[in-house]
């Protein structure tokens, strides 16, 4: 078989159009890749919920009957606020504003913790109203129904609710812990206008968790 001269030539020179990579720095790329797997993780939980709900609508209640929508709407508001403080922290360090970075980070941590706290309270109340994950003990009477009223929904409601929101809450908690690390590093002056990758990375994670909550709030509480 003969060899074509032009293919040979192209074989010999390093590709002039070569440019490795994603045009974003490696850690950011890594964070994005990791977040994709998180998408799939929540897909398996949320997908199961959607399917179970579709198959057994009678297990679930209309918005506000069992779950406390106003409380959670406030909580949603807080989480959105924490996203804003997070981008503000990032914007601050982009301009070299070290103090701004620290303050906004602190705000994000506080609001994030508040979110987790409110969620814990919510769990506590719901649990005591009989809205539990264990199928055998499920006896949620609903917001209006009070104790002894007819049971609203079925065990799949509690199971899916706690699994989904619980894993989201765990993600928020991990986010708060990581943010604390970032804050400590910020206090030590680890971030500068030129290098603030840590802030950007935790920001990506934090906003992703916020994004998941946007979906969860809608499909769990409102639909």
């Amino acid at each position, binding site marked *: 078989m003969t060899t074509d001269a032009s293919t040979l030539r192209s074989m010999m020179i390093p590709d002039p159009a070569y440019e*490795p990579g994603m045009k974003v720095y490696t850690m950011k790329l890594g964070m994005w890749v990791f977040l994709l797997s998180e998408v799939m993780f929540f897909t398996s*939980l949320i997908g199961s919920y959607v*399917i179970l709900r579709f198959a057994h609508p009678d297990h679930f209640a209309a918005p506000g009957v069992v779950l406390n929508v106003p409380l959670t709407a406030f909580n949603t508001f807080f989480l959105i606020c924490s996203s804003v403080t997070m981008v503000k922290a990032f914007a601050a360090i982009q301009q070299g504003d070290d103090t701004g970075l620290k303050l906004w980070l602190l705000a994000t941590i506080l609001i994030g913790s508040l979110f987790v706290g409110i969620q814990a309270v919510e769990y506590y109340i719901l649990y005591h109203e009989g809205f539990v994950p264990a*199928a055998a003990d499920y006896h949620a009477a609903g917001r209006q129904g009070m104790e002894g009223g007819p049971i609203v929904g079925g*065990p799949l409601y509690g199971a899916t609710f706690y699994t989904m929101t619980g894993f989201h809450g765990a993600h928020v908690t991990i986010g708060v812990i990581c943010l604390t690390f970032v804050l400590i590093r910020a206090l030590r002056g680890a971030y500068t206008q030129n290098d603030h990758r840590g802030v950007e990375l935790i920001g990506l994670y934090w906003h992703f968790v916020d994004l998941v909550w946007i979906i969860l709030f809608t499909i769990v509480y409102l639909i």
Partner: protein
Amino acid sequence: MATTAVTAEQHAATAQHHHEPGFIRTYVFSTDHKMIAKQFLLASLFFLLVGGLLAAGIRWQLGFPGQPMPLIGGLFSDTTAPGGIILPEFYNALVTMHGTFMIFFAIMPLLVGVWGNYLIPLQIGAPDMAFPRLNMASFWISVPAGVIMLAGFFVQGGHAGAGWTAYAPLSSEPEYSGVYMGQILWLISLTILGFSSLAGAVNYITTVINMRAPGMTWFRLPLPVWALFVTSWLVLLAIPILTGGLIMLLFDQTIGTGFFSAATDGEPLLWQHVFWYFGHPEVYILILPAMGLVSEVIANRSRKPIFGYHAMVLAIIAIAFLGWVVWGHHMFQSGMNPLLGTTFMITTIIIAVPSAIKVFNWLGTLWRGDLHFDVPMLNALSFVSMFVIGGLSGIFMASAPVDIFIHDTYYIVAHIHYVLFGGSLFGIFAAITYWFPKMFGRIFSPVLGKVHFWLTFVSYNLVFFPMHTIGLRGHMRRIYDPNQYEFLQPLQPINTFITIAAFVLIATQLIFAFAFFWSMYKGEKAPRNPWKANTLEWTAAPTPPPHLNFPGGAPVVYRGPYEYSWPGSTDDFLPQDLPPDRVSRTPIPSEPSPMSTGD
């Protein structure tokens, strides 16, 4: 400008690791991808051995039902095999754990953990992984997972016994299986292992995208890197689905949530969907890297460019894509909507097309080549041959009406082993023997290697080919005592025959273990490029490669990886990093390869 990014990263890395690391940092908590690869190699070979021994138990029961196991019979407790006679619940645990160890703890790390770690940085010309510490974590997370999984054998109630597929509600409610702790440990272990795989996948993907050496364009990547890259995507996106499912199943077991149990209106079929949505991509996770590794060996040992490089790459991608839309073929008889079954039948069967491309391109590579039948080549060729058999039996099952009969029979067991042993494991044997000189600086004993290969090849076929026939006679799988069924009693001689062959097969593997360690310490010292290969790990890095791989900085790549026998050069290979002005005018002096026996 982006090229500078790579070098900058390298400088940074060099600056970081200037001091000599101590013993613990070198051998235990190492961040060096090569050391991590070796750790994975030893750990997963150990689990391969465990899986093989469990198979021996399975085969003993099937070949000699109800008879006490010889020699080791006395070692078992009264709840597993009193007096050496295997109990049904122990048999179920044997089958379950055989599948689990083989899939999750042996083949998957052997392919992805070992070769992803070892080859990706070396073949793309990177100093290490993008996240070396995450990489270390990836190995050390898998250790507790393995320990927990092994611990399951010693807990009350025995180990998990619901099959490696753990169909709910058998797996979710202890009163149905009699297993409680074992199943929980199984779930926890696999959840943990998921994090290990995930850490690996993030690393591999990022590394391949961002850390290629200058000149290493996408279509100059060696095929193992392509295969591992695509596989990493499957791992990244499929494992979390399993993790979610495992967690729900764990909640069912422990809290009593009832996702998958009908008593609370949960959906048993949902578990199957979740499991197989992960499970089918998983089986391609178990074959694609082997395909890549084998392509490398075949091209090299044929001294020819791989036939249709682009088609090979596209076929890998196509298999990975199609792999996402076929999971229902495991559920044809599960009561799934028959219309959905038709869809899955069509998508499944279309996967044969990219697989065909791969097979024929391997044959095309051999055509007009100069074939050297060294140990890696023998194993690689057997991969091709056995994968065809396993793939073709997949066609029968892909046809949903035919699957009605053969589903859950030994026909499936035959399929599994033709693709996973005949395919993946032969691919792994090829890869271990091919890269052994690079990893350990010595050559894998050609004599022992050939003995191991031929004995394995023959006894393997004697074990697994007859399984097709007993499957077609209706022999169900996961069945403790087939003689309970009168119509299966005539098959007992075949089962006994299979068992004897299986013991030969397992014993043969001891030759491999011996050859492995013998070659590591006593094998012939390897020259730098014993296979006269083109890829960077042989041409640009010393043997064994030092920390950060390329002492002279990132190599520059000028051409694709399979430029063998180019007529313009006096040598029959053209290293990827050989500058064009040094080609053919100054042929590289190369030592004669001791392995090219020239038969």
